[in-house]
């Protein structure tokens, strides 16, 4: 790690935000915070294009949703002048209101200041001034089939239906993908003017047709920055890989041990190797406990694009550890070897500075962790 930079881990929790700052070896972490104590913080992201602009999606138990923005990497904050909000309904139309901003993504490298936000219920918003003012992406938010694709607001996660995993092709800013829970994966080739479902091969066993055109529940979708034609997803029914131009998802999670399964929420990619990815399996049987199978938490990693998986649990509790890791709470840094980090709903942060070979608990007793992101500052 260069001397002038340090690794920052941004932690969004149900009761505020925290940061962990690592030493160069990433074996010691300094916890700082809380900020926004009492706010429900869904996501915190530092803009990799300038390493200063930081956006934070928040609401409170009582007050409506908003976005806070910092121009000094979290030192001071201002509220967005116009947070994401749906258009006012026409007479007789459905009155949609943003319940919370769930996802934040910096725009393409060629569009400094552009950000995207995904909301609950499913909506996509764009800012062209580094998060001060947000406007809806009408091509999706007003699409006549949006309700059909998503199943309406009753079809979603227990915390509300969400638009997440806003992905931008680094070669072409017009090509984007989003995940909708429920709804599936959707793609645009014209920067959001038109959209199409991209769910062929993706199982939705909770629907009458198990392989529908739309209606899946992708928990997390990721695009590899060095091979943008490769996408991975961890969804409600398995782990998948897709290699364009074939828009068919291949279920690579079937190679996971049967006693563990391939159900989970998050997914993390190696920043330089498109064949390497990590998942955090959780029990998806019967009534969907969504805790570590058997109370034995483990990360699983693949180095061959899902052909095989390796259990990575050294340092993690051996038994009676019923971890739940939400879809935004598992991430990889960009260093070598890659650091991996996950946060649990019981408020612990676990870190590995060697690609999952060994894990250490680096923070505990935090509020319920919703999201982790890393940045070099």
């Amino acid at each position, binding site marked *: 790690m260069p001397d002038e930079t340090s690794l920052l881990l941004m932690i969004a929790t149900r009761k505020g935000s925290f940061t962990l700052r690592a030493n160069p070896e990433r074996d010691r972490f300094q916890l700082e915070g809380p900020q926004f104590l009492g706010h429900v913080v869904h996501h915190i992201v530092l803009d990799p294009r300038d390493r200063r602009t930081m956006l934070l999606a928040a609401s409170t138990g*009582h007050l409506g949703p908003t976005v806070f923005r910092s121009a000094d990497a979290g030192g001071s904050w201002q509220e967005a002048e116009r947070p994401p*909000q749906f258009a006012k309904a026409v007479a007789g139309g459905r009155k949609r209101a943003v319940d919370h901003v769930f996802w934040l993504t910096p725009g393409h490298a060629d569009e400094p200041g552009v950000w995207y936000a995904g909301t609950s219920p499913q909506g996509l918003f764009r800012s062209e001034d580094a998060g001060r003012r947000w406007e809806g992406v009408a091509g999706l938010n007003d699409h006549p089939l949006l309700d059909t694709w998503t199943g309406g607001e009753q079809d979603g996660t227990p915390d509300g239906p969400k638009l997440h995993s806003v992905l931008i092709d680094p070669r072409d800013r017009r090509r984007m993908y989003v995940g909708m829970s429920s709804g599936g994966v959707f793609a645009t080739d014209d920067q959001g003017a038109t959209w199409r479902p991209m769910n062929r091969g993706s199982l939705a066993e909770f629907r009458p047709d198990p392989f529908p055109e739309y209606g899946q529940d992708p928990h997390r979708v990721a695009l590899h920055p060095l091979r943008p034609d490769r996408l991975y997803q961890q969804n409600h029914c398995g782990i998948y890989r897709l290699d364009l131009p074939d828009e068919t998802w291949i279920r690579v999670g079937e190679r996971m041990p049967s006693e563990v399964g391939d159900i989970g929420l998050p997914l993390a990619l190696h920043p330089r190797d498109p064949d390497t990815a990590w998942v955090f399996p959780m029990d998806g049987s019967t009534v969907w406990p969504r805790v570590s199978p058997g109370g034995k938490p483990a990360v699983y990693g693949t180095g061959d694009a899902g052909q095989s998986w390796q259990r990575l649990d050294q340092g993690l509790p051996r038994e009676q550890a019923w971890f739940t890791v939400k879809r935004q709470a598992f991430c990889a840094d960009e260093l070598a070897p890659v650091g991996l980090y996950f946060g649990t709903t019981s408020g612990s942060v676990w870190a590995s500075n060697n690609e999952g070979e060994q894990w250490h608990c680096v923070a505990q007793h935090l509020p319920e962790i919703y999201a982790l992101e890393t940045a070099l500052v």
Partner: protein
Amino acid sequence: MALCRPASSRNLRAGNGAGVSTVALRLAPLLHSYTRGASELQVTGGTLNEMLQDLDRRYPGIRFRLVDEQDRPRRHVRFFVNDADTRDLEMKLRDGDNVYIVGALSGG
């Protein structure tokens, strides 16, 4: 943590025009970050909605935290006008009314 709010854009005791009432507004602590700690204000408006618009002109962004984009009060926000609980933003206000905005009792 430094949370910077825009400066209040108007005198807090603006003139009272035709059809506009001046009311005494009391704010629960969850809104004090907007008002720099002030819990009692004099605001104007012929209706509760107009009063909220006046409040938002002074403290930008506060209205959207209380009322959604379809002009519906947030689920866990309560408006009291002279002790009457209301969710009708078109409720008429009179000079001297007391308005109280509070987070509804909800836990977790």
